[in-house]
Every structure is written in structure tokens, then in C-alpha cells.
């Protein structure tokens, strides 16, 4: 038997109205057409997709793009409003971990309950239970009621329960990182292993690395449609690019009040502050952590000869000063009398967050000096694989090397 998933012109419309009775009548009658649910929210829009055996499909897209709805329909958790879904093979879906954990029962009993929900016989569960317990690393706690567990322990138990599935068609929604660092590594490795065994894998994740590691095909969904379908590398890159552009626009809009240039003294002004990131010289406000950042400042000031300085501050939005440096303007005078300063951070070691870049023009470098002109810009530093367990203020560029003995 060959495994496949075929979707033909599949749509899913969620009714927007509050009339649950209407939903009931529509659902029972089974004739939910466009007219019955007019004005409803279209989550998936006439989507056609076919997945063949051996394909490991990643689905990327922003929140509300219809990824999960699509996944639910493939998993058989909900039916399409129109169109047809054809699946050959047994579908195993992992949407949420720890479904049906019974607080009053011990960890061991819960493993049996989980087996029962999955439709396994007692003997089938018996054959894997020791492996599951070992994987969960719960030790003696496995005999204690689950209500005594910490969140991390519950997550470990829940993950261990799915660690021995033998899927034909496997559907995974969102990242499954659980527990402490070492367990998380183990869990990720196991997910890769399970995926390798699956005949067809469909994965929705916001972690681009997970998609690139696991998948050999990737689709990009937007407003319920597939806008791109191809190699994971190309699709994830295109997706990140689009997301970045959209995020930048949003960021500028949100922090508009912080942005701007003002002059306090006639003849003094900061006319341009531009940010350049990476090798390609694109003006942008989102910068990848660890990349190269160049800041170009163009200013004008009366009486260049004095001790005036350009002061560059990088401030986190909670007003924490992270970078402070004064540049005597005398060193950066251009031919036309303008001041042109380029500051380069190579690499930029700031951690992922939003920052404000303050440039001020001062008569001298004393702290009490009032600025003659000031300019502020907002930029965001993002990390592709942010470290788990907190938001470090700085990014530590670390490289590994073979020891030469």
C-alpha cells in the first residue's frame, strides 16, 4: 500500500455569528454552503495539495494563516466546509502534549490511560511501558500521582508517551520543546528519529531550523492559501524575508513617537541616520544578532573647530544604556563642511530586543552639556535561534575549533 494525502479544493469557513443553534442545524444537515456561512471567517481557501510517500512537509506562515486548520483537517479532527480530503494510511497526530492526563492517577497508570485513548490493548502498552518510563527520566516519581508533578515533569511524561509511536502518517503541530535543556535535546533528537520512520510527515512550526532539519518540502501559507511550495531552504528564507519586511513596517509604526530628528540650535542639525546590516547594504531596522551593523550619520554644525562631539547612545526601550561613545566631529568633516560619521559594529553583540539609537550633537563632551541637535531611530535585533531560558542582553559570539595537539 502506498501512502498519500490528497486535498482537492479544500475550504474551511468558521462561522462568525454567535448563533450556535444555526451552526448545529447547518452541521447536522451537512449542507454548509457558502450562503449558510456567508460572512464567516475563511481559514483555508480552496487549497489543493498532494503529499506523496516519503515526503516530509513543513508548513510555515504567520499566525492565522490557516496552518493549524489545515492540519486539523488532514488529521481528521475537523471536516472541510467544501472540497475533499483523501488520505491513505493511518494518521497519528500530535497537537498538544499531555492530553487526558489524569491528575489523581500515578504516572504509570496515566501511561495506560494514554494507551487506552490511543486504542491500544493492555499488552501493547505493557510492551513499551518500561521504555516510556525510562525515557521520561521520572524514576520513582512514576508511581506518584501526577498532581504532585512539576510542570516540567508533566511535560516529560507527556512527551515520553509519544516517544514510542510508530507512525505511518505523522502530523505534528508546533514545536515540541519540553523540560530542561538536556531533556529538550533528547526530545528533539527523538522527534527527528520518529519523523525519519514516518512514511509521511507534516510539521507546522515557527522554528525555521526544525523545518530545515526535518523536512524535504515546505509550503508557505498566507490567508488560507499556499503562496510558495518548494525546498525548505528556499521557502523558509522567503518566508523570513517577508515576515521581516512586515515586522519592520509594524515596528516603525508602533514606535513612531520615539523616532525623529530635532534641532535645538540654529545651524546645527543631524540630517541623516541610516543603518546598514550584513553584507548587502540595505536600509533596515531589523538586524540579525551577530551580524555586522554600520551606522551612517550625516550632520551639520556651526563652528566645527570647537570641541563639539557626536554622541552615540544605544538604549534598550526600558532606558537601559548599553552603548555610549563620543566622536569628536573635527575628525569626520567632509569636503562640503558636513560631518559624515560611520560607526561599525562587527559583529553586533546585542541580544534580541528592541533598541533606540540616539545620536546627539553636543558642544563639548561633558555630561551636563545640552544638545544642539538630536536624532532617534528604533531598531530591532533578532536572533534566528534564540537561546531558551531567557533573553540575554548580549549575544556571545562563540566558535568551536578542533584542538591541535
Amino acid at each position, binding site marked *: 500500500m502506498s501512502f498519500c494525502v490528497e486535498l482537492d479544493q479544500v475550504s474551511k469557513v468558521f*462561522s462568525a455569528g454567535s448563533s450556535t443553534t444555526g451552526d*448545529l442545524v447547518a*452541521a447536522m444537515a451537512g449542507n454548509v454552503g457558502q450562503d449558510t456561512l456567508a460572512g464567516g471567517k475563511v481559514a483555508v481557501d480552496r487549497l489543493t495539495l498532494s503529499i506523496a510517500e516519503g515526503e516530509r512537509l513543513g508548513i510555515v506562515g504567520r499566525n492565522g494563516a490557516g496552518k493549524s486548520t489545515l492540519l486539523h483537517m488532514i*488529521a*481528521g*479532527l475537523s*471536516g472541510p466546509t467544501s472540497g475533499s480530503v483523501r488520505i491513505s494510511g493511518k*494518521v497519528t497526530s500530535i497537537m498538544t502534549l499531555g492530553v487526558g492526563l489524569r491528575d489523581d492517577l500515578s504516572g504509570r497508570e496515566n501511561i495506560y490511560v494514554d*494507551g487506552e485513548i490511543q486504542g491500544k490493548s493492555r499488552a501493547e502498552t505493557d510492551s513499551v511501558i518500561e521504555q516510556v518510563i525510562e525515557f521520561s527520566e521520572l524514576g520513582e516519581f512514576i508511581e506518584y500521582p501526577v498532581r504532585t508533578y512539576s510542570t516540567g515533569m508533566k511535560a516529560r511524561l507527556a512527551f515520553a508517551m509519544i516517544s514510542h509511536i510508530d507512525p505511518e502518517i505523522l502530523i505534528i503541530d508546533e514545536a515540541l520543546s519540553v523540560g530542561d535543556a538536556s531533556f529538550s535535546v533528547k526530545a528533539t533528537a527523538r522527534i527527528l528519529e520518529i519523523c525519519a520512520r514516518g512514511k509521511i510527515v507534516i510539521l507546522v512550526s515557527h522554528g525555521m531550523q526544525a523545518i530545515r532539519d526535518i523536512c524535504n518540502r515546505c509550503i508557505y501559507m498566507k490567508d488560507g492559501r499556499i503562496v510558495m511550495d518548494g525546498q525548505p531552504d528556499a521557502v523558509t528564507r522567503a518566508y523570513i524575508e517577508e515576515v521581516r519586511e512586515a515586522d519592520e513596517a509594524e515596528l516603525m509604526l508602533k514606535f513612531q513617537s520615539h523616532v525623529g530628528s530635532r534641532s535645538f540650535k540654529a545651524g546645527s542639525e543631524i540630517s541623516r541616520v541610516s543603518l546598514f546590516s550584513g553584507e548587502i547594504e540595505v536600509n533596515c531596522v531589523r538586524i540579525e544578532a551577530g551580524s555586522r551593523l554600520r551606522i551612517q550619520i550625516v550632520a551639520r554644525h556651526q563652528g566645527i573647530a570647537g570641541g563639539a562631539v557626536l554622541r552615540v547612545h544605544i538604549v534598550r526601550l526600558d532606558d537601559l544604556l548599553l552603548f555610549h561613545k563620543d566622536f569628536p566631529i573635527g575628525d569626520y568633516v567632509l569636503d562640503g563642511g558636513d560631518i559624515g560619521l560611520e560607526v561599525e559594529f562587527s559583529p553586533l553583540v546585542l541580544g534580541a530586543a528592541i533598541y533606540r539609537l540616539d545620536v546627539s550633537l553636543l558642544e563639548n563632551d561633558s555630561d551636563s552639556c545640552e544638545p544642539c541637535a538630536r536624532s532617534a531611530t528604533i531598531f530591532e535585533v533578532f536572533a534566528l535561534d534564540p537561546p531558551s531560558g531567557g533573553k540575554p542582553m548580549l549575544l556571545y559570539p562563540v566558535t568551536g575549533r578542533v584542538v591541535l595537539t
Partner: protein
Amino acid sequence: MFGFNRYDVRLLLNLFKMNVRDRYLGSSLGSVWAIVNPLLMLCIYTYVFGFVFKIKLPGAETTLAYVVWLITGYGPWIATTEAIIASSGSVVGASSIVKNLAFKTELLPIAAALVGLISLAVSLLFLLILLIVSGNTPTWHVAFLPFVIVLQFIWIIALGMWLSAITVFVRDVMQVLPNLLTVLMFFTPIFYPFDSMPRLVQNLSLANPFYHLAEAYRSILTEHQVPSIEGMVFVAVLSIVVFHFGLAAFRRAKGYFDSAL
């Protein structure tokens, strides 16, 4: 049959086990309540109707005869009530697994209804003791009992199929249902004989499957007769028709469960 296979039977058993555990093993006295609850209700109604209202059956002199007669009808009714309520709430109650696992959700109302078998067993056991004490030892007619129990539960499951799917969209069902069942109980000859009901209700009762089921229990256990064949055929046909359409409606509606849960 009806689109179910061998694996579904196993899953049904698993779900049944889970329901029993959730219902009876969660509380500290656990299974004790499974026995105490129906007994308590039986005692109260016996007291009220047997000793306060002093109802006597036509032709019988003792109150004990009435008590036995009452329990033959009311015991199975408790099981019916429990099963219908459990079945109706089964899909909503299992929303976390319905939303996360692909399985035949139509097994949920069936598994939940079957939990009523436990309270039925308790009632019948209690009744058996009473029958022996009152000198009215059951005869070979009890051979019909399993047949009546099967019919009763097919009918309950048929209703549960509809109600559980409707409850997903209209949660009010769970609020109304207990009262509705109480009303139904008083329109079914459970506390008083068929003959003492108004003419109109008598006629309506002929279309009431619960009436036929109660009569069947009484024929077998207290009157030592073969239950009315017409009545049983009526219940069987009605159950299968209601179940068939209920299952079809449930299967159409289940695609929309995840947006309503």
C-alpha cells in the same frame, strides 16, 4: 456493522473503562458510591410512596409488594437517567481528546451510556434480594432479562447519539436534561400503575419506549410473564431507526466539533 470494526470495539472498551474509572474511582470512597447512590434514591422513593402516601397495588395487601413493584420500574430508570445524562455530555466532557486525537468520536456517547450498566446491576442485585425476601422468587422468565437490557441500552445509545452531538453546539441541553427526564419519569408508569393514569396519558404511553421497557422488567420479575412481544418489537424498531439517523447526523456534525468545543 454501522461502520465500526474490531479496533473500534477495543477502543470502546477502553473508553468504557476510562469512564468507569473517572466516575467512580476519582472520589475517595470510589466504588462505594456506585452502590450507595442508587440505593439511596431507591430508599427515598420507597419511603415516600410506600410509607407516606401508602400506595397499594390493586389486588395486593402489603406495602412490600408495592416496594418490589416500584423498584422493578425505578431501578432500571435510575440507570436510564444516568446513562442518558452521561451519554449527552460525553463529547463535551472529552473535548480535550476530541480536539487533539483523531478517533471515532461516535464511540464516546456509546461508552458513556454503558456506564449505566453498573447502576443497573446494583439495582437488580438489590431487587433480587428483595424478591427472595418477599417470597416472590424469580422464575425461568429472567432468561428474557438480558434481552430487555440490550434493548434498553440500544434505545439509550440512540438518544445519546443525538443528544451528545446537539450538546456540543447547544450546551443548554445539559441544564434542561435532568429536569426533562424527571418530567418524563412521571409520565411513565413507574411510581403508579398504568391503569391509574389519565386516559390521555395512557394512550400516549403506548408510544413511549420507556413505558414498554418498564413493563417488560415488571412482567419478567414480578409477574413472571413473557414480556409483551409487540412492545419489544416497537422499542427495537424505534431504537434502530433513531440510532441510524442519529449516527448519520453525528458523523456529519463531528467535522464541526472542533470549532464549537
